[in-house]
């Protein structure tokens, strides 16, 4: 079994339901994200459009994070998921530096690395990842890539020529696919990134003691 993910960007409407479901399911702390939807506006008024790109761990077949982890906190499950053992993680942040997709962060509460696990705990109970359940337009398709009759395999077969992965040149062989993607949605260098468009501000600490 090789579990994989596919997002049909033509269907995604940027509702962020998947983000919220992920946050709730995995108790992801404020200011950190296992999954988020990036908005990129394209064009010049009045010819403009907004693109939505859900971004999460790609669960690569050749995962740099797994390779660089000094204590095997990041490890493969038998179903292909790149899982993380937060009790073993030493917080060296090697994985954060290694991941070409910016999918790993240091959890401010546990001070360990964290990332999307395709909801491995739900998958173990034969349940879909929470983001799949939450998506109102079924833009998220999850299943076994080794099974030619699975929904994801059929989707990939029926959209040949329009299925992409992020940064294929890195040789990571992601198990996360996009249909209807393009340079603007999948290449972080293809868009201007100014300050002030973040999901949260920088007010994190309450000044205590008259400071």
């Amino acid at each position: 079994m090789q579990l994989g993910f596919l997002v049909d960007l033509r269907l995604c409407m940027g509702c962020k339901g998947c983000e919220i479901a992920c946050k709730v399911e995995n108790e992801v702390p404020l200011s950190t994200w296992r999954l988020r939807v990036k908005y990129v506006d394209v064009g010049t008024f009045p010819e403009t459009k907004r693109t939505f790109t859900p971004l999460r761990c790609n669960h690569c077949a050749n995962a740099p994070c797994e390779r660089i982890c000094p204590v095997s906190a990041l490890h493969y499950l038998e179903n292909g998921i790149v899982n993380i053992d937060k009790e073993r993680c030493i917080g060296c942040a090697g994985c954060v530096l290694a991941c070409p997709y910016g999918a790993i962060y240091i959890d401010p509460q546990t001070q360990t690395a964290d990332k999307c696990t395709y909801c491995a705990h739900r998958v173990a109970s034969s349940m879909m990842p929470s983001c799949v359940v939450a998506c109102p337009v079924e833009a998220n398709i999850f299943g076994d890539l080794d099974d030619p009759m699975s929904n994801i395999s059929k989707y990939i077969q029926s959209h040949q020529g329009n299925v992409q992965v992020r940064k294929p040149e890195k040789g990571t062989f992601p198990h996360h696919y996009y249909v209807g993607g393009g340079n603007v949605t999948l290449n972080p260098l293809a868009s201007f990134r100014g300050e002030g468009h973040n999901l949260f501000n920088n007010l994190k600490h309450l000044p205590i003691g008259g400071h």
Partner: protein
Amino acid sequence: MVHETIAATNAVVTLDVALPGIVWGWIITMNMWAKSIGTGIIFLGFYLLKKHPEQTGFIRFPVVAISIVFIHIFLFFTVIDLHQMFRFWHIFFYPHLTSAITIGAWMATGFVGLLLAMAYSIYMKKDEAMYDKLLGWTVLLAIPVTLYTAGLMAQSTARELWQMPTESAQMILAALLAGSATMILLGGNKFSDAVKKDLAIVLGLSAAAAFILYMAEIIFGPMKAEEVAAVLHYIKGGEYTVMFWIGQVMAFLVPMALVCLSLKNQSYYLLKIAAVSALIGLWVSKHVWLVIPQLLPMS
């Protein structure tokens, strides 16, 4: 950051998470800088003891003492950079041998063991033959200890700027630069002119070679990868330009010039200034090269 596709699409990120910022900062710079001195002094000590055994016998204990101090500074900064530093022992009990961090930790531990044995042999037993025998093994282990950080940077797939062949050369050159500079400061006026000349040549040549590599990366790197081009914008008119050039001038250009002048004028004083400049500049150069790839958005 501006990319050529923007003109065509006018694509602007209007909502996303904040960039993670600098994850490996000055603590890791300290780590690399201290390690360069800790292994570099061993390389230079070995060279001088082989080439000038009569004139450099007195360096045996200072060399191992300095190496022990700086390797422990390196280890200290390695550990305090961990977000879970009290789990450091996991590296030894749950080792993952594909990781350069694991390999580096094991080798650094062996290196420290050999350094302590050398200190014991020269300080407690006064046995120079045993010291010299151990020094050979220590030099062999110092090579991978110096290089493993380059391996770690190469394993950081996301950071296109850090390429293994170049980084490994830079690590060795940094060790030779730092080792020769430290040895110059250590020797005072006790070294003969021949030893001083040798140290000056090592300092000058390692500075020249490292500078050439940096310049080659700046000129030719952008032709290889879009990400490298984007990263190098930070030192080509970007926010780290001044710091980068301060590092290059202090670490490489000033030492090269002062080495030439000192050889011409037989001035050991100039050589000491070159050594201090090299050590300060090396820290700055390493820091800039460490930080700039982390400024790039990955997603």
